């Protein structure tokens, strides 16, 4: 049986492919930054709690207080890109999700448990400190497992050839472990999370949210940026490994065959390098901007890799467009209005901020 014959027929898309792409990329960039902050913070907090000799436990708990909110926004910002992914690439993502259904649903279970554990860690509950420390470690481990499951799904959707395994394993326990790019890609993501998590904690410090942390490093934010710097340094060899693990078509595309995509990769690497240099110099704002740019560029690149992988089976312009532009316009209007309203409310909330705000 030819594996291309089992690729499901695509449904219509509501607007042009380009609009969907822009929305998908925009929402994904927001989501992935929250994901990176969440997992990065989790890893940093876990590391601080494990290494409690340096009197870092208190800082860990101060960072930990922000994790529930980060998790709430991570989950909720994830909804839009997954929705758009299912609309734009439904025939691929639905299929891969079914093939690994057990893990996919297990990820939800892990989300619920880790969310509860994060609250246990962050709230003033009367648990022993050692228990709370273990709790955040377990929660972080769970989050990284969720990341691994999602990486599996995102790579499995690109590999219809592997789908044929369904005829041997149809109970939803398929994984894409034989995929060469899976591990480098996952490590790339974990490293990025630690780096972004480092920037986030540095910001918390800068915004004076870490209370007693001044005792450790009262003068600057470099202490926290070390997480970013070290993770970014490791990121470069992992990135190369990731590049090499791509299939020949994608690899060649990024190494000269396609000027635009190769250029994107080079600009992305340069942006990453600049963020590293800025991080080393302790320039938090500039470093953050460079890091954000790098994440955005890498997201664009990720999208190009996906398209290259799927190009033998999928041409976006073959999709039927059902012209729901009026709904799209309403969505944009609603989004803008809600953002305005939220800004307004933040303004209301910050009126007495100087005296009482502890957010």
């Amino acid at each position, binding site marked *: 049986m030819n594996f291309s014959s089992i690729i499901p027929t695509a449904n219509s898309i509501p607007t042009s492919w380009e609009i969907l792409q822009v929305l998908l990329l925009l929402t994904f960039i927001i989501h992935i930054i929250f994901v990176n902050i969440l997992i990065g913070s989790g890893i940093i907090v876990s590391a601080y709690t494990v290494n409690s000799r340096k009197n870092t436990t208190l800082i860990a708990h101060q960072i930990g207080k922000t994790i529930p909110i980060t998790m*709430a926004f991570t989950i909720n910002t994830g909804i839009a890109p997954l929705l758009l992914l299912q609309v734009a690439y439904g025939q691929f993502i*639905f299929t891969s*999700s079914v093939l690994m259904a057990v893990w*996919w649903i297990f990820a939800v279970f892990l989300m*619920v448990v880790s969310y509860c554990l994060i609250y246990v860690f962050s709230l003033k509950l009367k648990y022993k400190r050692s228990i709370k420390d273990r709790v955040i470690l377990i929660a972080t481990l769970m989050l990284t497992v969720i990341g691994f499951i999602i990486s599996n799904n995102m790579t499995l959707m690109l590999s219809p050839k592997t789908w044929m395994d369904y005829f041997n394993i149809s109970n939803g326990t398929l994984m894409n472990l034989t995929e060469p790019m899976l591990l480098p890609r996952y490590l790339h993501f974990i490293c990025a999370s630690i780096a972004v998590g480092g920037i986030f904690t540095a910001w918390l410090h800068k915004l004076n949210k870490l209370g007693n942390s001044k005792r450790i490093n009262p003068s600057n934010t470099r202490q926290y940026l070390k997480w970013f710097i070290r993770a970014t340094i490791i990121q470069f060899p992992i990135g190369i490994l990731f590049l090499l693990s791509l299939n020949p078509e994608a690899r060649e595309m990024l190494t000269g065959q396609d000027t635009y995509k190769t250029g994107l990769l080079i600009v992305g690497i340069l942006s990453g390098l600049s963020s590293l240099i800025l991080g080393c110099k302790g320039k938090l704002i500039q470093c953050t901007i460079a890091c954000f740019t790098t994440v955005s560029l890498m997201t664009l690149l990720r999208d190009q890799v996906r398209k290259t992988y799927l190009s033998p089976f999928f041409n976006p312009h073959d999709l039927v467009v*059902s012209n729901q532009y009026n*709904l799209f316009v309403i969505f944009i209007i609603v989004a803008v209005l*809600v953002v305005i*309203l939220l800004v307004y*409310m933040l303004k209301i909330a910050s009126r007495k901020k100087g005296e009482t705000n502890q957010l």
Partner: protein
Amino acid sequence: MNYPVWECYFTGGSLIVAAIAIIHVYIAHFAIGGSFFLVVTEYIGSRKQNKTLAKYVKSYTFFFMLLTMIFGSLTGVGMWFCISVVSPSATSTLLSNFVFAWAIEWIFFIGEITTLLLYWYYFDKIDQKQHIRIGIFYCIFSWLSLFTINGILSFMLTPGKWIITSSSWDGFFNPSMLPSLGFRTFFATMLAGLFGFVSAVFVTNSDIRLELINWCVKWTLLSLILSIPFLWWYLEVSSVQTEGTLTTLSPEISIAKCSLYLSIPMMLIVIIFIVINEGGRIQKIMAFTLLFIGIIYTGSFEWIRESSRRPYIISNYTYSNSILLTDVARLNTNGLLKTAKWVENRQISEHNVLEAGREIFRIQCLSCHTVGGPVNCILNHTKNFNLYGLDSQISGQGKLRGYMPEFFGTDSERMALSRFIIEKLHSKNPSPVTKLKTKKISTYPFDKTKDQYLLVGAAQYGICEVQEHELWAMDSPSNAIYAQLILRGKIPKIVSENVIVTYNIGRYSGEMLFSEELSAFYADQVQAILDSSFSICDPYPVTMITATDASSGYILAQSQFVMPASREIGCKHCHGGDWRYNNQNGISTSTAENILKTHDKISKTNFLQLTKNKGTVKCRSCHDENTTDLSEKHLNLSAAIHGFHAVYLSGKKMESQVCHTCHSTDYKGHTRSFRGVHCGTGLECTNCHGNISNLAIGLLKEELKQDKPSAKMLIKQIGENNSKGSDLVAPRKPWVNLPSCLNCHFDFKEPETDEHPVGKWIKSENSLFRRQADESGIMCISCHGSPHALYPSVNPYNENLDNISVLKYQGNTAPLGSAGNCEVCHTVDMTESIHHFSNQNTQ
């Protein structure tokens, strides 16, 4: 079909979705209602300058935030993940049509959780007016998220004009959108009130507790009262839109409706208890009880919604198993295996039939059924069937009880599915051929030269099935026997006077009466099954008839014939249980109970319970064909039984096998009652009676004359595809309008063609073969034997068992007097026959 199916036998797809959905629906509604409850309570507290209320709201908000943000949002995501893997096709359709509605809902939800976080974190930290203002936005966002998701949810049950226009607007603003929104809004606020009770009863200060409880009472009652008209509106609209599924056969909906309606007064009672028992221990228990009743109220509503959507997941568009309505014709013509994408076995052979069956099971069944799982287990649903029974059940599935999809595919695919379920999942083997013991016969001598009299007789039914069980009784007409005493001579005479004709069957005997109308002695209501020991092993007891001179007591003539009677009625093939007697015949209690249970389920009767108190249910007390009451709406028994089962049995390739499933004609069985000359020529039941569809439609058409709604419904369900030629079938009364011999034997000659005209029935009972006589008064059955056992017959217990009578008189098995045997009666050879006159007029 377009997507792979997650082969998760133990949970299936439905259980996982249901488990998450129950939690999510409850918490999500609570989140929406709670926002209003918190903000309104805070507002009232601020107006009354009541700090206690404000404090209460704060503590409640924290609990509320944890519950909604962790479990509410995550179970929502969980639901989405689950439906993506369980029903990817339907999810894709929803996304394709409503992605921006979903995206808008997402924006509102972001607004909701942001404002909730602000509301919680800035309690007591900003001016209360500003705090309430944030709260108001929080309420607005939460309600707007309900507004958008409600449009999509209600679309699935009532897509309305979307089916025609494919416009997302039409889909969103569908017929049940507004009532559903209204109900969910007030239901959500009510739920918050119920949670309010739980938190209020734990307040230690009695004054404050009382104040809070009073507030919760007002809040909950107002919400409950406002939700009721919307509930009624929703049920009305949904019922119309789903063509009455809500009010038809689904027993699940009846239970859910019952619990929905009951939970309302129960809530009121418990609230009264909470108020009366102020400060008492029971108050806390009652608060949790109230919460539990709230779950029942929610669960019942969602249950009704889910059940009434069946057999669809998106009404009139996508079936529960993700098969599109538009694909059905293609599937039935080309086959599922050739059409579906995720299939390995495209062709069915004996080698791969079970694997193919498994693939069909995966696509068609697994989205709702589990295998060995806690809900909707396919093993429980199919345990009663044998292979043929299951194949028939699947064939009729979804037609009468429309909450399951029909089977989509070819006959061989349906059989592959049945075989997979029976042979692989149940590990059942086909039933073996019954071994029959040969029966000895002994004939009484007849001397053509000396004997003056000839006594001939036959049973009126060559096939007589007797159903007798303590639980229910069909009371079918019992067998009767006829005998004619002929005084031999050149012109023989039928003797009716001064003779006594008696019958004897084993231990049972009696005198036969003479009927002027029939010119024959008869004994009706002959106890067909004489006693258990007699008939269990012998469906063909031999009757001895004796004619004696009334004055002298001298035996004039004796004869024998078979009086068939069989308990082999194959209900068990579909209704489960074993044979009652000797693993050969009889309806077991298990089978009988299942039949009553099925009747109760489908016709909403209570027979199973009734039998425990009042004894046997008499089928004909409702389904009476002899009733003269024109207002009677029950079908007669034949029409009801054949009509109902035809829905499941129509359209089978081996049409006569359908007859053998229920009747005692099965060639592997204990009776094998179709054994006459027609059987020997290769004819089948359906050649004369028509296939099950035509047979049933004939009966139903007659009932249609009285506008019986069930007749109309069954004719529709049997379907045009399965009842070719049914337009030619004339209406018929059971036991009266039967096939005429002349349909084939035109002018009493051998048929010239293989054509078997079906659907032409004899007009009146007296013209039936079993009661018909020729010009001289000799009954047809006297010379030809009983119907279905016409001479020469081949009885399975002894090939000549049915032919004893003719063997005695003429030494061969041909019809009496045929093949040059005129002298049997006439004592001389005759040159022409006058016997084949008939008035078997057909309609």
